[in-house]
């Protein structure tokens, strides 16, 4: 509480702990092709936050209700390596929510055309598994994870596949890319007191009252939302949070290169 009051005094003057403006991200850096074992991979740095994402492809049987669609899955590991606050063991609420926000952004924006992942209807489809692992957790994991997932999808290439034998040769990558139709970007806007800010430090996250993750595509339309925190938001607040997210997504899109 003490720290929060202190923080609010400074936010009033438009200053944050590390000297940034309220709507300013830390330095973003995206590195492609960081794991030879994965079909696609990327490391995203947002300030001191560092996240690695890998994409693995496999051929599976489709679900009965989507017989002509490939499968898409997002998983997040908040590794105990990345923060003293994370412990080994099964995924926590935080980790599951993170994975599901990233998943919905990709799924609902139709970034991957799942119909194009179909090999033989009702029998064989490609499954795309996106695994997000934190390397150093220093705030704003959601935006970094979503950006990393998109980067890893862009980096992915199909492995060689023999339809007759139904066998994948993971040692041989083709130059065929995934059917990526658009680029969903997640921007989380945080509310502390009466102030809205982006890309929080862990101290700012701890002091926050609410957050709203807004995933947008290039034309500015919104593909998914997630409100977090237990403080209610007014409709006007939601509108200005969405507006800020649309603006900031343009910067993040540039960072993808």
């Amino acid at each position, binding site marked *: 509480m003490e720290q929060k009051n202190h923080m609010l005094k400074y936010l009033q003057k438009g200053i944050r702990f590390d000297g940034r403006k309220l709507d300013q991200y830390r330095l973003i850096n995206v590195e492609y092709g*960081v*794991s*030879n*074992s*994965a*079909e696609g*991979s990327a490391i995203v740095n947002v300030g*001191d936050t*560092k996240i*690695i994402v*890998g*994409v*693995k492809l*496999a051929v599976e049987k489709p679900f009965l209700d989507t017989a002509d669609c490939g499968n898409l899955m997002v*998983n997040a*590991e908040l*590794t*105990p*390596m*990345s*923060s*003293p606050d994370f412990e*080994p063991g*099964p995924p926590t609420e935080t980790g599951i929510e993170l994975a599901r926000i990233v998943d919905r952004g990709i799924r609902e924006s139709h970034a991957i055309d799942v119909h194009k992942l179909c090999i033989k209807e009702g029998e064989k489809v490609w499954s795309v*598994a996106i*695994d997000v*692992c934190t*390397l*150093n*957790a*220093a705030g704003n994991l959601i935006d970094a994870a979503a950006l990393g997932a998109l980067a890893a999808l862009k980096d992915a290439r199909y492995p060689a596949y023999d339809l007759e034998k139904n066998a*994948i040769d*993971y040692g041989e990558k083709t130059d065929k890319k995934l059917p990526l139709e658009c680029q969903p970007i997640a921007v989380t806007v945080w509310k502390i007191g009466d102030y809205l800010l982006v890309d929080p430090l862990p101290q700012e996250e701890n002091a926050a009252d609410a957050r709203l993750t807004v995933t947008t595509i290039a034309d500015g339309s919104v593909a998914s939302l997630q409100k977090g925190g237990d403080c209610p938001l007014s409709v006007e607040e939601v509108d200005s949070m969405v507006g800020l997210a649309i603006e900031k997504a343009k910067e993040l899109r540039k960072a993808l290169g």
Partner: protein
Amino acid sequence: MTKSNAIFKRPDGRAFDETRPITAKVGVIKNAQGSAMFQIGDTQAIAAVYGPRNLFPKFLQNPRKGILRCFYNMMPFSGHGERIRPGGSRRSKEISMVTQNALLPVLNLDDFPNAGVDVFIEFPQTDAGSRCAGICAASMALADAGLPMKDLVAAVAVGNINGNIIVDLNYAEEAYDGQVADIPVAMLPNSGKVTLLQMDGISEREELKKALELGKKTCQKIYEVQKQALKGKYKVD
């Protein structure tokens, strides 16, 4: 036992006593007390040390000394073939345990009663030899954390393919169609003592002796790389 007389060539053309290229770096995880990256060929290990810190659950605490805990984990996309299900396996449990045993002899945690030192080892990509790379990274991370240590620990896998003693097997060699023995060893470079030793496959007693000699020689080389990396953190250009 029959052995082929044909001249054995390593799939990637290396000499029998030649490792894949090694790179090492210290201080790669900012939140950790100590951390290191060790890469040998396409196998990359990252280790982070947290502690000495409060140890929970409390019944694990030892009032005489601190406890070391190691956690070996392959990232889901780091396997050679299909995705690895996250959440640990019998294999990762065992490797965590032997890693702990390999590192414990160099540590002195007498000054940290009731505390725990946690070592987390993660792999973004692998091509055989991951437990050895993990041990190399972990011992550097422990040194980087400033813990009292008697020595570093260096590790490498040696192998016996049809009677040919080679060092640092890659996946193609582990899966070689013939008689293959895979022998991961960890050694204390200053005393030459062995802190991890496993073998999968068949070897003669003499071959095993030769393999351990090669392992010892290679661990000395790895030790030099580890020392350079640790000093590199404090280098001023």
